[in-house]
């Protein structure tokens, strides 16, 4: 904790504020850290960096409220496949012949056939070829909901990346949002967020973070198209939308 406070003090000094501002900042932190309750900054203390040992656990303003010991219910493979198809496929655009195959190929490889990680027993009777079970019925008795793991997350990230490598996927997703401008803005960022997060609204911090990513990419002279791709990628890769 001392180290954390030193960091804050050093930061304050580094940004060279006037004396009265420093007083306000100190006041802010006393309020923020002095009470065991909800403040905006406390969202940082719920970060998952196992090396960071912050003393107080707080919910954030943008959080769902769950008991601290409750295990998460995560979306199963069909939910994720359906969600991805919904986002990355349209009448005009779909992935057909990318280096990774079609959208269905990618989703089958990283999600649909990973019932061991994503849950939902496969159905050996769904087709004559038992395609749902990938020719192996060992997952036919699998659980609907599975625990999370590094492997599951890696498969999900790979799916996001393989899909968004395709310009057709980017185009399909952009068709689903109402763009008031050719470049990303607050409204379009919120819509991108809500493509994935079906039951939550984008909080201000989230929207600002995405807009700042866009500004950074703009400064780095990335094309507008790549900036859209980046926004879709970051939201796609964020883990929260799997939570049921």
């Amino acid at each position: 904790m001392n180290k954390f406070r030193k960091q804050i003090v050093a930061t304050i000094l580094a940004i060279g504020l006037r004396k009265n501002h420093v007083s306000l900042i100190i006041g802010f932190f006393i309020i923020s850290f002095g009470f065991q309750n909800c403040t905006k900054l406390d969202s940082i203390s719920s970060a998952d960096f196992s090396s960071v040992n912050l003393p107080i656990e707080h919910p954030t303003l943008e959080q769902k409220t769950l008991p601290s010991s409750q295990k998460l219910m995560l979306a199963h493979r069909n939910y994720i496949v359906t969600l991805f198809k919904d986002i990355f496929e349209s009448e005009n655009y779909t992935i057909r012949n990318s280096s990774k195959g079609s959208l269905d190929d990618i989703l089958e490889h990283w999600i649909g056939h990973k019932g061991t990680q994503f849950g939902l027993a496969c159905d050996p009777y769904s087709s004559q070829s038992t395609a749902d079970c990938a020719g192996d019925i060992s997952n036919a008795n699998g659980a609907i909901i599975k625990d999370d793991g590094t492997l599951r997350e890696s498969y999900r990230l790979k799916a996001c990346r393989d899909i968004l490598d395709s310009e057709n996927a980017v185009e399909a997703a952009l068709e689903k949002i109402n763009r008031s401008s050719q470049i990303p803005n607050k409204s379009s960022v919120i819509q991108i967020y809500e493509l994935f997060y079906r039951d939550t609204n984008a909080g201000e911090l989230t929207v600002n973070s995405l807009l700042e990513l866009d500004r950074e990419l703009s400064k780095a002279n990335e094309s507008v198209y790549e900036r859209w791709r980046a926004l879709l990628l970051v939201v796609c890769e964020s883990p929260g939308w799997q939570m049921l």
Partner: protein
Amino acid sequence: MSKKNKLANMTRRNFLKTSSQVSAFAFSGLPIHSLMDLVTKNLIQQARAESTGQTGGRNYVNLLLFGAPARYAFDHWQKTNVSDPDMIYNPMVSTAFKSSQGKVTDTEYRSFLHNNTLVPHFFANSVQTSAGQVALTNLLENMLVIRGYGTGVDGHPLNVIRQLSPLGGASSISGLAADYSSKYFQAIQWPDRGDTSLFNSTAGYGVNKIFTSDQRPLNSLLESFIKPTGSATSKLTDNNSSAFDLAKARLKNYIGSNSAGSKILASNYSNAEKLMKAGVNNIDGYWAEAVSRYRNLIESSMRARNISGLSDATLISTGENSGLKFESAGPRVLAAGFNAIDMTSTMSAGNLAASFALTEYVLKEKLCTSVEICELDRFYSLTYQAVGDVASSIMDFSYDIHENASKITLLKTAALFRGVAAAILELSTQLKAVATTNGSDLWSDTVFQITSDFNRSARTDGLGSDHGFNQMVTSVYSGAIKNGPYVVGNIKKTGLDANFAGTQGVSSSINGYTQNGMPNPLMAASTVAELLAVPHNPYANSAAPLIKVSSSGLILPFGKGVLKDE
């Protein structure tokens, strides 16, 4: 609303809400977002600097031999102290063949003293490893046998689960090791154990079950971490890594809940990200070499001839009355003229080679803390010719050897465990070569446990065995166990009843122990947990561990296991 009323309504929560709004207002025009960025960036840097080494207890490897092969020849030891009473001999618990003029004549319980413990004849031999022939007594030095416990109820999966996840509400043993892991994968499992698995981690981790339709679990585990090159998303993220890192860290923090589960989700996401960035290379090169190495040494050990007392004499069947009964869709007998020793001449490693290669890789590369491997109910590729067969065949046989007579049981299980022992010795050699930051080596930071559903109850007539859920055993290996072997847990001299007579490891009570009568599997789990050296042993209140680890060896608070004259 008057000022007084406002104050009266000012709950602590409202106060904080108002205060933070005031603070936020005071900050308007100030770079609060930048300040938060710096805090978040600092967290990112700390996360990057996070060691992938162990912060909790030791690594844990569980080898499950599902189906319950008999363990008498290998690790279910009977008379282990010179002072123990003599056994009542039952041929099903034999450890060696008696022979005369190169022909097997009978079986016996043969043992020898090693470090003041009587151990089965099995360990008087050697096995092949990549370092050449290695005496099996080397394995004894790092070996602990935990026997003398049971559940009193039948059922294959049930008894596996009762041993590995012995206390409702607490972590399973492999979950316990995972609870304190700071590695990319807290726990992995291959092959999928199905309904024999009840992984539980009170820290909220799940086991990463590896699914593969071939024998390449490492490839399946790591295929998503092979670094992509030249793709649109990889170029974009590589060229703007700081901006992406910051945005991802913020999203991870801002979106979600405060539950332990969501932290695990975020942690797994971070681990996946980090490992994808680091990339994994040359898996194929390692895999081909390692699987071949383990397969060769396992199979050469299984198939070895001229093993003293186990395969150095012929065992020729005389047909129906030879007593060489085995099970293949019901009881059968080896055909007249068939040499039973030839059964193991084609025996193969099954999943064992890939299991050990996987284990070696994930431990050496510090990818994982808890590893669950298993062999599902098969002696692979045994040659046989039964009465009525016109020629010999090669077939896989179940571990659940109800109708296997004593000689066949000894032959099959000694061969199986020679292969297992060779693989453990090879793994230990590999892990000993890896120094750890605490001045020790990886083998000393690893606990390897062999579990099966139960040992087998030995039929009095020596012609078969059944489910020994009152006579369980597990053995554990680690560089942290020095000057072994050690035996804990007490057994009775007598068998179960007239149908299962003779000494066969039936569990007995321990004087002054925390459990009354026959200890249940919590006793074994608590003892293994002690070896894991995790900060908290969740089983200890219900069942005290039977060992304490010291630098010179194990301390046995309840004494050495004894054969009781009961």
